[in-house]
Protein backbone atom coordinates (compact mmCIF):
# COMPACT_ATOMS: atom_id res chain seq x y z
CA UNK A 1 0.00 0.00 0.00
CA UNK A 2 2.77 2.42 0.91
CA UNK A 3 4.81 1.49 -2.15
CA UNK A 4 1.79 2.12 -4.31
CA UNK A 5 1.29 5.50 -2.71
CA UNK A 6 4.93 6.38 -3.50
CA UNK A 7 4.34 5.36 -7.09
CA UNK A 8 1.29 7.57 -7.35
CA UNK A 9 3.13 10.47 -5.79
CA UNK A 10 6.10 10.17 -8.14
CA UNK A 11 3.77 9.98 -11.14
CA UNK A 12 2.15 13.14 -9.92
CA UNK A 13 5.50 14.92 -9.51
CA UNK A 14 6.50 13.93 -13.04
CA UNK A 15 3.29 15.31 -14.45
CA UNK A 16 3.66 18.57 -12.56
CA UNK A 17 7.24 19.13 -13.65
CA UNK A 18 6.40 18.51 -17.28
CA UNK A 19 3.86 21.30 -17.38
CA UNK A 20 3.81 23.00 -20.72
CA UNK A 21 5.61 26.27 -21.23
CA UNK A 22 4.13 29.74 -21.30
CA UNK A 23 2.83 31.20 -24.52
CA UNK A 24 0.71 34.27 -24.87
CA UNK A 25 -1.99 33.46 -27.42
CA UNK A 26 -4.32 35.76 -29.29
CA UNK A 27 -7.59 36.29 -27.51
CA UNK A 28 -10.59 36.38 -29.85
CA UNK A 29 -13.94 38.05 -29.57
CA UNK A 30 -17.01 36.76 -31.37
CA UNK A 31 -20.44 38.06 -32.21
CA UNK A 32 -22.91 35.33 -33.04
CA UNK A 33 -26.39 35.72 -34.47
CA UNK A 34 -28.57 32.84 -35.55
CA UNK A 35 -31.60 32.95 -37.79
CA UNK A 36 -34.15 30.20 -38.19
CA UNK A 37 -34.31 28.45 -41.52
CA UNK A 38 -37.31 26.88 -43.20
CA UNK A 39 -36.59 23.54 -41.56
CA UNK A 40 -37.49 23.31 -37.85
CA UNK A 41 -34.55 23.21 -35.41
CA UNK A 42 -32.07 24.22 -38.12
CA UNK A 43 -30.41 27.58 -37.77
CA UNK A 44 -28.16 29.71 -39.97
CA UNK A 45 -25.51 31.31 -37.78
CA UNK A 46 -23.38 34.29 -38.74
CA UNK A 47 -20.18 34.74 -36.73
CA UNK A 48 -18.01 37.80 -36.67
CA UNK A 49 -14.52 37.26 -35.26
CA UNK A 50 -12.14 39.94 -34.11
CA UNK A 51 -9.05 40.26 -31.97
CA UNK A 52 -10.18 41.09 -28.45
CA UNK A 53 -7.27 43.45 -27.85
CA UNK A 54 -6.76 45.22 -31.15
CA UNK A 55 -10.24 44.89 -32.63
CA UNK A 56 -8.87 43.73 -35.97
CA UNK A 57 -10.93 41.18 -37.89
CA UNK A 58 -9.58 37.62 -37.77
CA UNK A 59 -9.35 36.05 -41.19
CA UNK A 60 -8.30 32.63 -42.37
CA UNK A 61 -9.24 30.90 -39.13
CA UNK A 62 -10.66 27.37 -38.99
CA UNK A 63 -13.96 27.83 -37.19
CA UNK A 64 -16.05 24.98 -35.82
CA UNK A 65 -19.46 25.59 -34.27
CA UNK A 66 -21.05 23.29 -31.73
CA UNK A 67 -23.75 23.58 -29.11
CA UNK A 68 -24.59 22.09 -25.73
CA UNK A 69 -27.49 22.53 -23.36
CA UNK A 70 -26.35 23.92 -20.01
CA UNK A 71 -29.16 22.26 -18.11
CA UNK A 72 -28.22 18.84 -19.48
CA UNK A 73 -24.49 18.91 -20.21
CA UNK A 74 -23.44 16.45 -22.88
CA UNK A 75 -26.93 15.07 -23.09
CA UNK A 76 -27.37 16.40 -26.59
CA UNK A 77 -24.09 17.23 -28.24
CA UNK A 78 -24.96 18.77 -31.53
CA UNK A 79 -22.41 17.54 -34.09
CA UNK A 80 -19.91 20.36 -34.62
CA UNK A 81 -19.94 21.85 -38.11
CA UNK A 82 -17.13 23.68 -39.88
CA UNK A 83 -17.98 27.25 -40.71
CA UNK A 84 -17.33 28.70 -44.15
CA UNK A 85 -15.78 32.17 -44.52
CA UNK A 86 -18.26 34.87 -45.38
CA UNK A 87 -17.98 37.79 -47.75
CA UNK A 88 -16.50 40.29 -45.31
CA UNK A 89 -13.16 39.64 -43.58
CA UNK A 90 -13.68 38.07 -40.18
CA UNK A 91 -17.17 36.75 -40.91
CA UNK A 92 -18.10 33.08 -41.07
CA UNK A 93 -21.32 31.17 -41.62
CA UNK A 94 -22.44 27.82 -40.24
CA UNK A 95 -25.66 25.89 -40.22
CA UNK A 96 -26.42 24.05 -36.99
CA UNK A 97 -29.09 21.49 -36.26
CA UNK A 98 -30.41 21.43 -32.68
CA UNK A 99 -32.21 18.57 -30.96
CA UNK A 100 -34.76 20.62 -29.10
CA UNK A 101 -35.72 24.19 -28.30
CA UNK A 102 -34.60 26.08 -25.22
CA UNK A 103 -31.42 27.57 -23.80
CA UNK A 104 -28.25 26.49 -25.55
CA UNK A 105 -24.58 27.39 -25.09
CA UNK A 106 -23.16 27.81 -28.57
CA UNK A 107 -19.45 26.98 -28.74
CA UNK A 108 -17.26 28.62 -31.34
CA UNK A 109 -13.95 26.75 -31.55
CA UNK A 110 -11.05 28.36 -33.35
CA UNK A 111 -8.15 26.38 -34.78
CA UNK A 112 -5.66 27.31 -37.47
CA UNK A 113 -3.48 30.36 -36.79
CA UNK A 114 -5.49 31.30 -33.71
CA UNK A 115 -6.61 28.82 -31.04
CA UNK A 116 -9.48 29.80 -28.80
CA UNK A 117 -12.98 28.94 -27.73
CA UNK A 118 -15.86 31.32 -27.22
CA UNK A 119 -19.13 30.33 -25.66
CA UNK A 120 -22.34 32.29 -26.21
CA UNK A 121 -25.58 31.58 -24.35
CA UNK A 122 -28.57 31.79 -26.64
CA UNK A 123 -32.21 30.81 -26.48
CA UNK A 124 -33.86 29.07 -29.40
CA UNK A 125 -37.64 29.07 -29.56
CA UNK A 126 -39.86 27.68 -32.31
CA UNK A 127 -41.49 30.14 -34.68
CA UNK A 128 -45.02 31.01 -33.54
Amino acid at each position, binding site marked *: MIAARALLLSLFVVMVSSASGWAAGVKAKAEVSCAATAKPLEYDCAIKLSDARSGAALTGVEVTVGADMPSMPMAHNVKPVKATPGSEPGTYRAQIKLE*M*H*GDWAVKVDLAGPVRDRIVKSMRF*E*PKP
Partner: protein
Amino acid sequence: MIPFIQTTLDGVMVGSSYGLLALGFALIFGVMRRLNLSYGPSIMVGAYLGTLLYIQFGAPTYVVAIVAVAGSVMAGVYVERLCFAPLGVGAGVASMVSSFAIWMQLEQASLLMLPRHSYPFPSLTSGELLSVGPLVVRPDYLIMLAAMLAITAALHLLLYRTRFGLGLRAIIENSVAASLSGIDVRSTMLKAFALASAIGGVAGFLVLSANQQVTAMLGMWATLKGLIAMMIGGLGSIPGAIVGGLVLGVIEVHSQTLFGPQVRDLAAYGVLFVLLVLRPGGIFGTAAVSESAAHRGGDRWTTT
Protein backbone atom coordinates in the same frame (compact mmCIF):
# COMPACT_ATOMS: atom_id res chain seq x y z
CA MET B 1 -49.43 42.91 11.16
CA ILE B 2 -51.83 42.73 8.26
CA PRO B 3 -49.11 42.31 5.62
CA PHE B 4 -47.70 39.44 7.67
CA ILE B 5 -51.05 37.70 7.78
CA GLN B 6 -51.55 38.37 4.09
CA THR B 7 -48.21 36.83 3.24
CA THR B 8 -48.91 33.85 5.46
CA LEU B 9 -52.29 33.43 3.82
CA ASP B 10 -50.67 33.49 0.40
CA GLY B 11 -48.22 30.92 1.65
CA VAL B 12 -51.01 28.64 2.80
CA MET B 13 -52.65 28.95 -0.60
CA VAL B 14 -49.51 28.06 -2.49
CA GLY B 15 -48.76 25.41 0.09
CA SER B 16 -51.98 23.57 -0.56
CA SER B 17 -50.72 22.65 -4.04
CA TYR B 18 -47.45 21.45 -2.54
CA GLY B 19 -49.46 19.47 -0.01
CA LEU B 20 -51.37 17.66 -2.73
CA LEU B 21 -48.14 16.83 -4.55
CA ALA B 22 -46.56 15.59 -1.35
CA LEU B 23 -49.66 13.48 -0.69
CA GLY B 24 -49.06 11.53 -3.85
CA PHE B 25 -45.42 10.98 -2.96
CA ALA B 26 -46.29 9.94 0.58
CA LEU B 27 -48.90 7.47 -0.62
CA ILE B 28 -46.42 5.78 -2.93
CA PHE B 29 -43.59 5.83 -0.44
CA GLY B 30 -45.77 4.62 2.39
CA VAL B 31 -46.98 1.65 0.39
CA MET B 32 -43.87 0.76 -1.58
CA ARG B 33 -41.08 2.18 0.61
CA ARG B 34 -39.54 3.55 -2.57
CA LEU B 35 -39.17 6.92 -4.14
CA ASN B 36 -40.89 7.47 -7.45
CA LEU B 37 -38.82 10.00 -9.37
CA SER B 38 -41.28 9.87 -12.25
CA TYR B 39 -44.10 11.38 -10.23
CA GLY B 40 -43.67 14.93 -11.50
CA PRO B 41 -43.19 13.87 -15.13
CA SER B 42 -46.31 11.71 -15.08
CA ILE B 43 -48.27 14.77 -13.97
CA MET B 44 -46.55 16.66 -16.79
CA VAL B 45 -47.74 14.11 -19.35
CA GLY B 46 -51.34 14.53 -18.22
CA ALA B 47 -51.06 18.31 -18.15
CA TYR B 48 -49.50 18.42 -21.59
CA LEU B 49 -52.20 16.19 -23.06
CA GLY B 50 -54.79 18.55 -21.63
CA THR B 51 -52.94 21.57 -22.97
CA LEU B 52 -52.71 19.97 -26.40
CA LEU B 53 -56.47 19.54 -26.51
CA TYR B 54 -56.94 23.08 -25.31
CA ILE B 55 -54.67 24.62 -27.92
CA GLN B 56 -55.49 22.44 -30.89
CA PHE B 57 -59.20 21.92 -30.39
CA GLY B 58 -60.21 24.63 -27.93
CA ALA B 59 -61.47 22.02 -25.50
CA PRO B 60 -63.53 23.31 -22.56
CA THR B 61 -61.87 23.52 -19.17
CA TYR B 62 -63.56 20.50 -17.61
CA VAL B 63 -62.38 18.32 -20.49
CA VAL B 64 -58.85 19.57 -19.97
CA ALA B 65 -59.13 18.71 -16.28
CA ILE B 66 -60.39 15.19 -16.96
CA VAL B 67 -57.71 14.57 -19.57
CA ALA B 68 -54.99 15.93 -17.28
CA VAL B 69 -55.98 13.59 -14.46
CA ALA B 70 -56.51 10.60 -16.77
CA GLY B 71 -53.18 11.22 -18.47
CA SER B 72 -51.38 11.34 -15.16
CA VAL B 73 -52.99 8.08 -14.09
CA MET B 74 -52.01 6.37 -17.34
CA ALA B 75 -48.45 7.57 -17.03
CA GLY B 76 -48.38 6.53 -13.37
CA VAL B 77 -49.56 3.03 -14.14
CA TYR B 78 -46.97 2.77 -16.92
CA VAL B 79 -44.24 3.74 -14.46
CA GLU B 80 -45.48 1.29 -11.85
CA ARG B 81 -45.57 -1.60 -14.30
CA LEU B 82 -42.13 -0.88 -15.71
CA CYS B 83 -40.10 0.35 -12.76
CA PHE B 84 -41.64 -0.92 -9.56
CA ALA B 85 -43.66 -4.08 -10.06
CA PRO B 86 -40.94 -6.16 -11.76
CA LEU B 87 -38.22 -5.29 -9.25
CA GLY B 88 -38.43 -7.37 -6.16
CA VAL B 89 -38.45 -6.38 -2.54
CA GLY B 90 -35.21 -4.69 -1.63
CA ALA B 91 -34.19 -3.43 -5.07
CA GLY B 92 -34.97 0.08 -3.90
CA VAL B 93 -32.12 1.88 -5.59
CA ALA B 94 -32.66 0.10 -8.89
CA SER B 95 -36.34 1.03 -9.07
CA MET B 96 -35.52 4.60 -8.16
CA VAL B 97 -32.92 4.88 -10.92
CA SER B 98 -35.32 3.15 -13.28
CA SER B 99 -38.00 5.69 -12.43
CA PHE B 100 -35.43 8.40 -13.13
CA ALA B 101 -34.77 6.94 -16.57
CA ILE B 102 -38.51 6.98 -17.23
CA TRP B 103 -38.59 10.58 -15.97
CA MET B 104 -36.32 11.48 -18.87
CA GLN B 105 -38.45 9.43 -21.21
CA LEU B 106 -41.74 11.02 -20.15
CA GLU B 107 -40.25 14.49 -20.19
CA GLN B 108 -38.95 14.11 -23.72
CA ALA B 109 -42.27 12.61 -24.85
CA SER B 110 -44.07 15.63 -23.41
CA LEU B 111 -41.68 18.07 -25.06
CA LEU B 112 -42.19 16.33 -28.38
CA MET B 113 -45.89 17.02 -28.00
CA LEU B 114 -45.37 20.68 -27.16
CA PRO B 115 -41.83 21.94 -27.76
CA ARG B 116 -42.10 25.55 -26.61
CA HIS B 117 -40.99 26.74 -23.24
CA SER B 118 -44.48 27.80 -22.12
CA TYR B 119 -48.07 27.50 -23.23
CA PRO B 120 -51.36 29.06 -22.11
CA PHE B 121 -53.58 27.03 -19.85
CA PRO B 122 -57.28 27.54 -19.21
CA SER B 123 -58.19 29.11 -15.92
CA LEU B 124 -61.12 28.25 -13.68
CA THR B 125 -62.11 31.73 -12.63
CA SER B 126 -62.06 35.16 -14.12
CA GLY B 127 -59.15 36.10 -11.92
CA GLU B 128 -60.82 38.86 -9.97
CA LEU B 129 -59.46 39.10 -6.48
CA LEU B 130 -61.74 38.45 -3.56
CA SER B 131 -61.61 40.62 -0.50
CA VAL B 132 -62.05 39.10 2.90
CA GLY B 133 -61.93 42.07 5.23
CA PRO B 134 -58.49 43.68 4.92
CA LEU B 135 -57.05 40.59 3.22
CA VAL B 136 -56.96 39.78 -0.46
CA VAL B 137 -57.41 36.27 -1.78
CA ARG B 138 -57.12 34.86 -5.26
CA PRO B 139 -60.14 32.68 -6.01
CA ASP B 140 -58.09 30.13 -7.95
CA TYR B 141 -55.97 29.49 -4.92
CA LEU B 142 -59.04 29.32 -2.73
CA ILE B 143 -60.32 26.56 -5.00
CA MET B 144 -56.99 24.78 -4.58
CA LEU B 145 -57.19 25.00 -0.81
CA ALA B 146 -60.76 23.73 -0.89
CA ALA B 147 -59.73 20.89 -3.20
CA MET B 148 -56.90 19.94 -0.90
CA LEU B 149 -59.20 19.79 2.11
CA ALA B 150 -61.77 17.81 0.14
CA ILE B 151 -59.22 15.33 -1.14
CA THR B 152 -57.70 14.91 2.30
CA ALA B 153 -61.13 14.22 3.76
CA ALA B 154 -61.94 11.78 0.97
CA LEU B 155 -58.62 10.03 1.44
CA HIS B 156 -59.25 9.74 5.16
CA LEU B 157 -62.61 8.14 4.44
CA LEU B 158 -61.01 5.83 1.95
CA LEU B 159 -58.29 4.76 4.32
CA TYR B 160 -60.45 4.24 7.37
CA ARG B 161 -63.87 3.27 6.04
CA THR B 162 -63.22 0.99 3.11
CA ARG B 163 -61.72 -2.44 2.66
CA PHE B 164 -59.29 -1.08 0.12
CA GLY B 165 -58.14 1.49 2.66
CA LEU B 166 -57.77 -1.21 5.27
CA GLY B 167 -55.60 -3.20 2.92
CA LEU B 168 -53.56 -0.11 2.16
CA ARG B 169 -52.97 0.64 5.82
CA ALA B 170 -52.06 -2.98 6.43
CA ILE B 171 -49.44 -2.87 3.69
CA ILE B 172 -48.04 0.40 5.02
CA GLU B 173 -47.72 -1.22 8.42
CA ASN B 174 -46.12 -4.47 7.29
CA SER B 175 -46.34 -5.73 3.74
CA VAL B 176 -45.36 -9.29 4.58
CA ALA B 177 -48.03 -9.68 7.22
CA ALA B 178 -50.55 -8.06 4.91
CA SER B 179 -49.89 -10.55 2.16
CA LEU B 180 -50.09 -13.40 4.66
CA SER B 181 -53.49 -12.09 5.71
CA GLY B 182 -54.71 -12.60 2.18
CA ILE B 183 -54.40 -9.07 0.87
CA ASP B 184 -53.39 -8.93 -2.78
CA VAL B 185 -50.37 -6.72 -2.25
CA ARG B 186 -49.40 -6.20 -5.88
CA SER B 187 -52.87 -5.24 -7.02
CA THR B 188 -53.32 -2.89 -4.06
CA MET B 189 -49.97 -1.26 -4.79
CA LEU B 190 -51.01 -0.69 -8.38
CA LYS B 191 -54.26 0.91 -7.28
CA ALA B 192 -52.43 3.07 -4.74
CA PHE B 193 -50.10 4.21 -7.51
CA ALA B 194 -53.05 5.11 -9.71
CA LEU B 195 -54.68 6.98 -6.84
CA ALA B 196 -51.50 8.92 -6.10
CA SER B 197 -51.15 9.82 -9.78
CA ALA B 198 -54.74 10.97 -9.89
CA ILE B 199 -54.20 13.23 -6.90
CA GLY B 200 -51.07 14.55 -8.58
CA GLY B 201 -53.00 15.17 -11.76
CA VAL B 202 -55.56 17.22 -9.86
CA ALA B 203 -52.81 19.18 -8.11
CA GLY B 204 -51.12 19.84 -11.42
CA PHE B 205 -54.31 20.97 -13.10
CA LEU B 206 -55.18 23.35 -10.27
CA VAL B 207 -51.73 24.92 -10.13
CA LEU B 208 -51.58 25.39 -13.88
CA SER B 209 -55.04 26.90 -14.05
CA ALA B 210 -54.12 29.28 -11.23
CA ASN B 211 -51.03 30.37 -13.14
CA GLN B 212 -52.80 30.20 -16.50
CA GLN B 213 -49.74 28.77 -18.13
CA VAL B 214 -47.77 25.56 -18.30
CA THR B 215 -44.00 25.49 -18.69
CA ALA B 216 -41.48 22.84 -19.61
CA MET B 217 -40.16 22.85 -16.05
CA LEU B 218 -43.39 21.27 -14.72
CA GLY B 219 -41.94 17.79 -14.26
CA MET B 220 -38.90 18.90 -12.30
CA TRP B 221 -40.89 21.44 -10.30
CA ALA B 222 -43.57 18.98 -9.22
CA THR B 223 -41.03 16.34 -8.23
CA LEU B 224 -38.87 18.71 -6.20
CA LYS B 225 -41.72 20.48 -4.43
CA GLY B 226 -43.55 17.27 -3.61
CA LEU B 227 -40.38 15.66 -2.31
CA ILE B 228 -39.36 18.62 -0.14
CA ALA B 229 -42.87 19.02 1.28
CA MET B 230 -43.07 15.32 2.08
CA MET B 231 -39.70 15.34 3.84
CA ILE B 232 -40.58 18.42 5.89
CA GLY B 233 -43.81 16.86 7.01
CA GLY B 234 -42.38 13.46 7.69
CA LEU B 235 -41.38 10.61 5.44
CA GLY B 236 -44.35 8.61 4.25
CA SER B 237 -46.79 10.24 6.62
CA ILE B 238 -50.04 11.35 5.02
CA PRO B 239 -51.05 14.10 7.43
CA GLY B 240 -47.38 15.09 7.36
CA ALA B 241 -47.56 15.62 3.63
CA ILE B 242 -50.30 18.20 3.99
CA VAL B 243 -48.62 19.99 6.86
CA GLY B 244 -45.27 19.86 5.08
CA GLY B 245 -46.77 21.36 1.98
CA LEU B 246 -48.36 24.22 3.92
CA VAL B 247 -45.17 24.89 5.85
CA LEU B 248 -43.14 24.92 2.65
CA GLY B 249 -45.57 27.32 1.03
CA VAL B 250 -45.47 29.72 3.97
CA ILE B 251 -41.66 29.65 4.16
CA GLU B 252 -41.35 30.25 0.44
CA VAL B 253 -43.72 33.20 0.26
CA HIS B 254 -42.22 34.89 3.31
CA SER B 255 -38.66 34.45 1.97
CA GLN B 256 -39.67 35.84 -1.36
CA THR B 257 -41.31 38.87 0.22
CA LEU B 258 -38.30 39.53 2.42
CA PHE B 259 -35.37 38.67 0.17
CA GLY B 260 -36.48 38.11 -3.39
CA PRO B 261 -37.23 35.12 -5.62
CA GLN B 262 -33.79 33.49 -5.68
CA VAL B 263 -33.59 33.32 -1.93
CA ARG B 264 -37.04 31.76 -1.89
CA ASP B 265 -35.73 28.45 -3.24
CA LEU B 266 -32.57 28.75 -1.19
CA ALA B 267 -34.64 29.18 1.96
CA ALA B 268 -36.74 26.11 1.14
CA TYR B 269 -33.63 23.95 0.68
CA GLY B 270 -31.95 25.45 3.70
CA VAL B 271 -34.90 24.74 5.96
CA LEU B 272 -35.18 21.21 4.60
CA PHE B 273 -31.51 20.55 5.21
CA VAL B 274 -31.56 21.90 8.75
CA LEU B 275 -34.76 19.99 9.50
CA LEU B 276 -33.30 16.74 8.21
CA VAL B 277 -30.20 17.15 10.29
CA LEU B 278 -32.01 18.12 13.47
CA ARG B 279 -35.15 16.05 13.16
CA PRO B 280 -34.80 13.45 10.43
CA GLY B 281 -38.32 12.19 10.88
CA GLY B 282 -39.76 15.49 9.83
CA ILE B 283 -42.64 16.98 11.71
CA PHE B 284 -44.82 13.89 11.83
CA GLY B 285 -42.71 10.99 10.78
CA THR B 286 -41.09 8.39 12.93
CA ALA B 287 -37.71 9.46 14.17
CA ALA B 288 -36.08 6.28 13.03
CA VAL B 289 -37.40 5.03 9.75
CA SER B 290 -34.68 2.40 9.61
CA GLU B 291 -36.00 0.60 12.64
CA SER B 292 -39.36 -0.02 11.07
CA ALA B 293 -37.56 -1.11 7.94
CA ALA B 294 -35.55 -3.60 9.95
CA HIS B 295 -38.73 -5.06 11.40
CA ARG B 296 -39.84 -5.67 7.88
CA GLY B 297 -37.23 -8.33 7.66
CA GLY B 298 -35.00 -7.50 4.74
CA ASP B 299 -37.02 -4.81 3.01
CA ARG B 300 -34.11 -2.39 3.34
CA TRP B 301 -34.22 0.62 1.17
CA THR B 302 -30.59 0.89 0.26
CA THR B 303 -29.51 -2.65 -0.42
CA THR B 304 -30.43 -4.96 -3.24
